[in-house]
């Protein structure tokens, strides 16, 4: 029984580390600011979740488990918030995201102008 929990726990811990590393690779490989933020999201969400779930199996039904799940909840609320704050400040500082569809990009730029004029 305990060996099964141990194996399950380590599967989750290794998966979490794997996704964290993938996020790190993504930050290096992806071309510009906005696409790199998506890679950061992988580490923030699934990497953190799998690591905490792995630790939950280690903790068992204790007060530590409750605290760990609270940490997971706070992480899942705060990391998108900071990600959005970063993206929004980049946009309002005038950094234009590189887009892959030229036709669509020009339309978006027009929409951006409208937004900045409105604000």
């Amino acid at each position, binding site marked *: 029984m305990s060996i099964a929990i141990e194996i399950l726990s380590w599967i989750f811990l290794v998966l979490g580390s794997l*996704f964290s590393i*993938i*996020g790190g*690779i*993504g930050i290096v*490989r*992806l*071309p510009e600011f*906005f*696409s790199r*933020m*998506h*890679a950061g*999201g*992988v580490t923030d*969400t*699934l990497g953190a*979740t799998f690591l905490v779930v792995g630790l939950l199996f280690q903790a068992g039904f204790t*007060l530590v488990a*409750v*605290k760990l799940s*609270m940490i997971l909840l706070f992480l*899942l*609320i705060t*990391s*998108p*918030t900071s*990600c*959005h704050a970063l*993206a*929004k400040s980049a*946009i309002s500082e005038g950094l234009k*995201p*590189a*887009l*892959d*569809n030229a036709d*669509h990009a020009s339309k*978006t730029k027009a*929409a951006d102008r409208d*937004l900045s004029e*409105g*604000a």
Partner: protein
Amino acid sequence: MKYTISLSLAMAGSWLIWSGHFQIWDDHFHHYFILVLGLLSCLFCIWLAARMKIVDDESAPVQLGLRPFTTYFPWLMKEIVISNIKVAKIILSPRLKLQRRMITVTAHPKTELGRVILANSITATPGTISVQMEDDKIQIHALSFEGAEEELSGDMDRRVCKLEKNQ
């Protein structure tokens, strides 16, 4: 009033969880002393919050009930896992197949809290980041646009609307 009560309960609960001082049956003097200190700090925080007039449906969203945890959160976790695998595949593919787009979706939730939940859920799923919000329009930056992103945000929109209905 119901917001004050729920906020006090949440504060007392979180104080007990973080401090771990449940042992009232252990009749050492200092346990009572620490419990009283916890009670006083909870009361002080609620008094401060009431003085700042921030005890409302945003600081203690009791009107949502437990449904965010029972129905919305499990569904969101499933979507987070799916989109994470998609983004991980893109990162690890030898040629980065990116379709970066800015798309605009309409947010239908009526309350500000609902819109925050929607925009945060969009950001929480990797591959889509909500960049800007003007009234009810959310601008989204998508990493590899396939049309599924718009569908997903629409689905999220419906679920958040359902969440804030029948309060």
